[in-house]
């Protein structure tokens, strides 16, 4: 039982561990889903901001395209001399700087005109810096001046990174170049702050992407990010955001906690958006990393947002409660299992006792519905020589197949058409007749008394009690009663008991009954001369000779002393005579011990079934008398 308790404990423990793990995983998934909602919020807010900028950029672009003077300057610029270009550039600046100042108020940092061949025409933030080629490191400029379609996206440059909106300037099928409106992250951050006031935002760039195009001398404008040396941020002395974040204890705390989280570096290097939900001192925080793609569709960094996230604590507590309840349930289940084990053990002990009790029975006991076996005791298996029920059923369908078809014993042939099975058939018999015979493994035939008791709705307990010895004893007694003890021939008791049925049997076989009455001639002299021992031997010998010369259905009866009767079937008196004569000759020619020769005299009759058999016996006796009187050793009819 200890083993079972241990097993139950391990099962409950194992299931509990699986459930615990499942709950833990579910908790992580739920937290991640919740965190992803925050990420989604940042993403949506960011997209909304960028879309807003897009609208502003589009509107500004259209304003420029509608500005005839500006278009005239740009048209002329394309084909002007260098000196003229300088003047035109100045005119363009003078014409549009108010537009630029307005855009600055909308957080657009840069208004930048490019030539048709991808050179800087005029940067409004740094007007004197112009003429440099952008085509090799500004995908957007290249794309716009190649495909003549607007391009929007995050992009690096020779100095800074920012969101760019670049539009082609086509005037009457003439590509005049492109115009770009760009915003730095500070503009986005300001608006993000308005939409998500409880979050702090910063931007980090993949260092190798930043260093790819930026001027060598500008590399020192970037610092390693606190998250990883593979990422960088704008030097905090030149970026208000970096400076703001640098001094923010809350942010620094979350950066440290993020870095301590599992798989942080793996997630960071994966470049896909992700979240780091954090629970510290029962307070929830979240750090979201919104992946930024540049115009080349490559991930180049993240917008990182820091905020409080109390929902995650509630979620965690909820799951912890579930886990605790699960723990209690596990204990409860274990207790239940323990109770079941105890009960099962009790039942098993009881069953075992019962089985043992049944097994030690000398009878064969089975539980069956008449067709299928439910149970069989040890005696059953010992008797038939099978290991178990399964093995027995490989060879048999039913124990009833083993019932031997013998007179006086029940067998399957005794099952009547209106009876369902052998059980029903046996139940319909009186108890005394419920006897069957079966052959044991040792090829011995045994007789059984069958008792049947209802077990449940369907099944019966069938008990086969071995009555072979009892039956033999009975038969022996019966034999003793109907046979002569000296000669073993039937006696008068047998005659009286069976003569009518013998006659009936012959009649049923359309034959008549013949009676041969004979006795030993001068038997008194044998006894007197050689003693009773010899006389007894003579009687035995005579019986043996007769038995050897009559048919199996013929019955030899010692009528008394040296007188015998043979009851036989016959068609006519001649048959009887011939058989009597044959016996007489056999006896006559037999060489008896000591006395050498003996004869018998025979009186025969053919009995009519209508007559009294004793009358016929008397007639036969009279015929014997006649044979005696006419010289003995004769058959008289």
């Amino acid at each position, binding site marked *: 039982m200890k083993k079972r308790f241990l097993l139950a404990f391990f099962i409950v423990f194992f299931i509990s561990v699986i459930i615990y793990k499942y709950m833990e995983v579910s908790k992580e998934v739920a937290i991640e889903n919740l965190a992803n909602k925050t990420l989604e919020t940042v993403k949506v807010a960011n997209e909304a901001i960028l879309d807003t900028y897009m609208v502003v950029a589009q509107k500004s672009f259209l304003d420029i395209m509608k500005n005839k003077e500006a278009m005239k300057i740009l048209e002329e610029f394309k084909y002007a001399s260098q000196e003229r270009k300088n003047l035109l550039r100045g005119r363009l600046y003078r014409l549009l700087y108010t537009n630029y100042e307005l855009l600055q108020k909308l957080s657009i940092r840069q208004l930048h005109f490019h030539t048709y061949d991808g050179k800087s025409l005029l940067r409004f933030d740094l007007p004197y810096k112009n003429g440099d080629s952008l085509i090799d490191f500004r995908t957007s400029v290249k794309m716009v001046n190649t495909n003549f379609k607007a391009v929007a996206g995050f992009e690096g440059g020779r100095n800074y990174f920012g969101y760019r909106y670049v539009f082609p300037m086509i005037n009457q099928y003439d590509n005049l170049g492109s115009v770009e409106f760009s915003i730095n992250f500070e503009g986005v951050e300001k608006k993000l702050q308005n939409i998500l006031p409880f979050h702090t935002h910063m931007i980090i760039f993949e260092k190798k992407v930043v260093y790819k195009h930026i001027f060598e*001398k*500008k590399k*020192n404008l970037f610092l390693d990010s606190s998250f990883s040396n593979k990422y960088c941020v704008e030097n905090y002395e*030149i970026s208000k955001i970096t400076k703001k974040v640098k001094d923010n204890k809350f942010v620094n705390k979350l950066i440290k906690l993020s870095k301590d989280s599992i798989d942080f570096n793996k997630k960071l290097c994966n470049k896909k958006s992700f979240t780091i939900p954090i629970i510290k001192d029962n307070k929830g925080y979240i750090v979201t990393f919104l992946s930024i793609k540049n115009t080349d569709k490559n991930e180049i960094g993240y917008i990182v947002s820091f905020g409080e996230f109390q929902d995650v604590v509630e979620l965690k507590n909820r799951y912890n409660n579930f886990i605790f309840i699960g723990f209690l349930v596990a204990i409860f289940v274990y207790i239940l299992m323990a109770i079941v084990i105890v009960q099962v053990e009790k039942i098993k002990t009881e069953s075992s006792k019962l089985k043992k009790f049944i097994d030690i029975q000398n009878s064969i006991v089975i539980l069956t519905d008449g067709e299928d076996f439910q149970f069989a005791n040890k005696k059953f298996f010992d008797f038939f020589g099978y290991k178990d029920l399964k093995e027995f059923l490989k060879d048999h369908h039913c124990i009833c197949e083993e019932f031997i078809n013998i007179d006086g014993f029940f067998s399957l042939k005794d099952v009547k058409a209106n009876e369902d099975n052998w059980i029903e058939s046996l139940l319909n018999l009186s108890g005394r007749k419920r006897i069957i015979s079966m052959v044991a493994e040792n090829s011995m035939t045994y007789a059984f008394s069958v008792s049947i008791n209802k077990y449940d709705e369907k099944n019966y307990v069938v008990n086969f009690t071995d009555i072979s010895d009892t039956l033999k004893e009975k038969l022996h007694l019966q034999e003793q009663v109907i046979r002569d003890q000296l000669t073993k021939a039937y006696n008068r008791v047998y005659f009286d008991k069976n003569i009518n049925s013998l006659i009936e049997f012959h009649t049923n076989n359309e034959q008549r009954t013949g009676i041969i009455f004979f006795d030993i001639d001068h038997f008194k002299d044998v006894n007197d001369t050689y003693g009773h021992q010899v006389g007894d031997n003579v009687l035995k010998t005579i019986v043996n000779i007769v038995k050897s010369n009559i048919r199996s259905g013929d019955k030899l009866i010692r009528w008394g002393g040296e007188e015998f009767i043979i009851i036989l079937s016959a068609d006519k008196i001649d048959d009887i005579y011939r058989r009597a004569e044959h016996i007489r000759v056999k006896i006559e020619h037999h060489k008896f011990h000591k006395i050498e020769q003996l004869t018998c005299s025979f009186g025969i009759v053919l009995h009519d079934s209508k007559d009294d058999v004793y009358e016929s016996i008397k007639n036969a006796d009279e015929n014997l008398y006649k044979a005696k009187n006419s010289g003995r050793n004769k058959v008289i009819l």
Partner: protein
Amino acid sequence: MIKKMVLVVFSLFFTTTLIANGKKNINFAPLPTKSSVQNTKEFLPVNRYLEKKLSLKIHYIHKKDYRDILDGFKNGTIDIAYLGPLPFVSLKKEYKYAQPIVTFKQSNGLAKYRCVIAKFKDDKFDKTKQFKVALTQPLSTCGYLMTNILLKSKFNLELENQKYNYTMSHTNALLSVLKGEYLLAGAKKSIAKKHESLGMEIIAQSELLPGFSLVVNTKTLSKEQIKQIQNSLLSVSSKEYKQWGGITVNGLEKANIDDYNSLHVDFKIPQKGNIR
């Protein structure tokens, strides 16, 4: 006598050690005419170099104008400043502990520069009419001082008779002309030249003037430390300076105090413009 000598030697040794240790936190004031972001960007490589080489920590002190820098020198809150010649001369007049140690070269490889008057090519310069002049800062060499001198010498005009205002930087002065807000701008030639690509033209230029220098506060920094800083800066090759970029991109040379002699003239510079 021997005792006294030992004491003097010991004292000298002790003092030298202390001086050699020097000040670890240096307050540096870059040019007020540029934005703090721009200043930080430009001085970042050279300051990092000094920080690393001399185990210093350089703190940026961004001042709004030259007056604040002069005050900073006086009250000891500024140890080093990046100053043009006029602010230095003004500072020197009021504060004798200011000393230039290195002068920055320009793109032409010279440590001296010129001031110019520039205008947009499209705009007409009618000397008979009053016009508006964009200036940098009161204490900017190319501001009121040289613009006034150039107007007088080249066009026989008095700045005081014109409308003028301070735009706080050379670029702002030039851009304000480009925008059409002013007719003329007084600025450093190198900066004005850059704006020629925007249709600006130089209509008058000065003689060569001493360039921008790093000026140290000899009251807050020890001679030894000043020497270390000067030597450290002069020991860097021009090739290396070029790689660094920023303010030192063209290299630098040892400052000569005599270059400022021509600027030691009596002048009275209005602190505010005359345009309301």
